[in-house]
């Protein structure tokens, strides 16, 4: 990581920011952040960004959050989908967006995006081309 705030404010600098890949294309929002207690040092480390509607629903909590997480779960073709977890080592910089060092193709495609691509949008003529 080259460009980074000091100190890193997790709520302000990370939560709800747009994650973009190395080419600047949107990957997802930072819906939550993973913190891990390092057993060797006993210190709390920031380890990964979590993204996905279910994570967001769990974070919002209450009836509204439950509803959101429930819809996300129902829309997923697989049961108990894991959230998109992006290790902090893949983060290139934290600015007005969180930029990754990798391309979005290297990350798992969100299941809903893929399902819609296979079953709906991809079947409409012209889906494979940007406009002209």
């Amino acid at each position: 990581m080259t460009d980074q705030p000091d100190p890193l404010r997790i709520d302000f600098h990370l939560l709800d920011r747009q994650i973009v890949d190395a080419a600047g294309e949107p990957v997802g929002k930072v819906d939550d952040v993973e913190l891990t207690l390092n057993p060797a040092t006993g210190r709390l480390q920031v380890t990964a960004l979590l993204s996905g509607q279910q994570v967001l629903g769990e974070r919002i909590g209450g009836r509204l959050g439950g509803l959101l997480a429930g819809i996300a779960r129902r829309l997923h073709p697989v049961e108990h989908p894991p959230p998109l977890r992006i290790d902090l080592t893949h983060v290139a910089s934290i600015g007005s967006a969180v930029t990754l060092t990798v391309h979005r193709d290297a990350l798992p495609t969100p299941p809903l995006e893929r399902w819609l691509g296979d079953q709906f949008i991809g079947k409409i003529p012209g889906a494979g081309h940007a406009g002209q």
Partner: protein
Amino acid sequence: MKRVFAVTLGILTAIGGFVDIGDLVANSETGARFGMRLAVVVVIGVIGICVYAEMCGRVAAISGRPVFDLVRERLGPKAALANLTGSYLVTLLTLAAEIGGVALAIQLASSVSYLLWVPVAAFAIWVALWRVKFETLERVFGLVGLALVVFVIALIQLQPDWAALAGDATQLSPPDGEDWGTYGFYAVSLFAAAMTPYEVFFFSSGGVEEGWTAKDLLTSRMNVFVGFPLGGVLSLAIMGCAAVVYQPLGVQVDTLAQTALPVGIALGKIGLVVVILGFFAATFGAALETGLSSGYTVAQYFGWQWGKRVAPRQATRFHTVVIISVLLGVALLLTTIDPIQLTEYSLVFSAVVLPLTYLPILVVANDRAYLDDKVNGPLANTLGIIYLVIIVVVAVAAIPLMILTGVGQ
């Protein structure tokens, strides 16, 4: 010509705020009932949208972040979800109205009921959203929408008593036969239309679609300071035409055909053809603006890939939201609800949406972490605060005024 093309985004954005189907008729209705006594609200609205569109254009150019991205970032997921719900409903109601508006414009040229044209119009709009490049859309519909300048020519041709119109414009009270409640209602709805939130969603996302960077700050400003004032002038010309033709006869306006009539009277058949073409382009353009905005807001809230730079296959969730929105709009219209009334009801949501959209823009436009040395100066901040206060007053007043006046009847 290149200069003209550079500002089509601003023109198309302004069309959605000032001369979409609801406003075409509302401007005419206002002129017929209040003369030019509400003209000042249009001017206030133009300044307000310029102040905030300039801010969000600057943020989009320098940081690449469109408005709804900032809304979620600064308000957090819950308040942003409340805004998303309200904004989406405003955008959806307007999209439905515009599809109906395109159909109404075709009815004026064909005399076949607009309801039969609704599916055709919706399909054409969707094809444009699906296949046509963003720049092509904004150029075609931004420029053809300028056909509405015919209202300015018609107003001149009608040879009104300019001094009387100007004198009317300085009277900030309802004329005889109208009460303060209705006057207030029309003032609030004109202002809310001028500052309708999908304008900033569309404008900032459009800037990102066009790939603006810090070098394009001037382009962004030109778009703002050409597009919105132009929208305001069209709005005032429509108001003026109605004031001249209808007010002396005590006629109230509630159809698109009535809005067009002063042009026919002043300029004859050619004028009428031009004005119908202008209606078509303006409503079609506003449909594109709201159709895209429905996808922009949802996708930006959740952080999905969005926009027309990439193939639909690359942004399937975005395109699905757009398709569902168009279908919902068609379903709403086929209940035979009056498309022109639809946009008036979207005023209900402005209480939630307006403050929650403009506050985050103002805050971020002051943050050096986003804008470095391009943060707001004292003028932008002073105007920003003044308008935020007006927005809050309007947002609070909107619903009671709606109930009190039975939506301005």
